[in-house]
């Protein structure tokens, strides 16, 4: 968890440094990936610039306050809700209560545009992925798998357990930025009917 936080902090300070020819900065669990324009600057030069920037003491103030809090309304009527209750031996009302009681952190964005890997799911709700992914999970589906939860931003194949759905638009190419969540943000789910 601490490593993830330092990776997010490094990503924020690299972004704040506005290094020329850098196109994108993607923090993940064990890696920080920087996309740059290789026609404009060599690997050697950009690597040195990035490493020097990471060695610099963290720029004063502001970075951690940049993470935002989101409250996502969910109708808990997902097609796997009953199966999750059965597999965990927890009543449906308690599955919902345990899912809404936590504040999750956006660890990583990816897979498809706007998909956020949110941790840490209540240990009593942790199940392996479904043995066969579904060919199409509808956009807005709220799902859980292992220690993570997330919201499918688009209709995509998916192997997580669907427990609910939200009308919140996770990704809109016409919005700036298009993805609702940023790495490091925190998310809470709220039950609506």
């Amino acid at each position: 968890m601490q490593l993830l936080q330092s990776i997010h902090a490094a990503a924020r300070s690299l972004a704040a440094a506005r290094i020329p020819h850098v196109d994108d900065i993607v923090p993940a669990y064990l890696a920080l990936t920087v996309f740059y324009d290789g026609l404009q600057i060599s690997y050697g030069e950009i690597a040195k610039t990035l490493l020097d920037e990471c060695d610099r003491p963290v720029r004063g103030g502001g970075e951690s306050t940049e993470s935002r809090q989101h409250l996502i309304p969910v109708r808990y009527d997902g097609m796997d809700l009953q199966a999750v209750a059965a597999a965990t031996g927890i009543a449906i009302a308690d599955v919902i209560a345990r899912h809404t009681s936590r504040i999750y952190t956006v660890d990583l964005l990816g897979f498809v545009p706007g998909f956020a890997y949110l941790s840490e799911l209540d240990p009593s709700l942790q199940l392996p992925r479904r043995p066969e992914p579904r060919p199409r999970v509808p956009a807005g589906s709220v799902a859980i798998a292992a220690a993570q939860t997330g919201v499918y931003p688009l209709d995509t194949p998916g192997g997580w357990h669907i427990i609910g759905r939200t009308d919140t638009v996770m990704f809109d190419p016409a919005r700036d930025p298009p993805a609702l969540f940023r790495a490091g943000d925190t998310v809470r789910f709220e039950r609506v009917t």
Partner: protein
Amino acid sequence: MDFCALGAANALVGNRLDAAGLEWALGAGSIKFAQDAVFSLGGATARATLSGKVAAPCTTIYAKSGDELAIEQINGGRFLYIAFRGGVDVPMVLGSRSTYLPGRFGGYRGRSLKSGDSLPLGPESTNSPTDGFHCAPDLLPPYGPGIVHVTRGTHADLFDEAAWRTLTEGEYRVTGASDRTGYKLEGPALANKAGSLPSEAGCPGSIQIPGDGYPIALMADAPTVGGYPKIAVVAAADLPILAQRSPGETIRFELITIEQSQRALKRRVSDLNTISQLAASSSR
């Protein structure tokens, strides 16, 4: 999928190298011109005719309003590109005019084209290359031999010397499980001792090794993160060579350094710029 083929086709009609064109895969079809236009064909080869006359590849072609460009089955390579003078005028989404089919956005209404769609062309710049101008094949990537250069990937060290020998000495065949998302390859399997790793960013060209040991090369519509170890990355200059391989065709990997890869990419772009200059000077 093949930026060199699209770039060359654009150069031949006097466009910027990255202007929007059409990517054409699989079946036959035709395009009717509703206005006079200049177009060119690049990448995969197909028998093509313009109102009954052969439309040669890598050539600047003038079409009249009412002309019909008919394309039969692709017979060499995989993705054919059609560039039109002025470029296809679709809105910019997230800095690009290309279509992202999985997300259903970008390009023309976020979807594949259908019969009856009508595509607007953008404004033309001043000089058009002359009708019949042809581009020398030596300014295009060497598609024929199927040599694909790779650099070491982020998880290169998780694979031992034997795995590296296997990857660079074996021959790999593109399987039917290959599309714009990724190409699954068949050939000598690589021992993946790392299993699955915590997800991290990847890019088109990443060669990942799943549990079965058979490489998957990520392509243009690849997921932005993944958890399989990435042994190598296809040099950007050679991604077009891989992209144009059809299922059943083979490739070989050769290891190069990042510096060599960057030089090779610069050479490709400079070759495309040469086509632009030659095309422009043909108009005088």
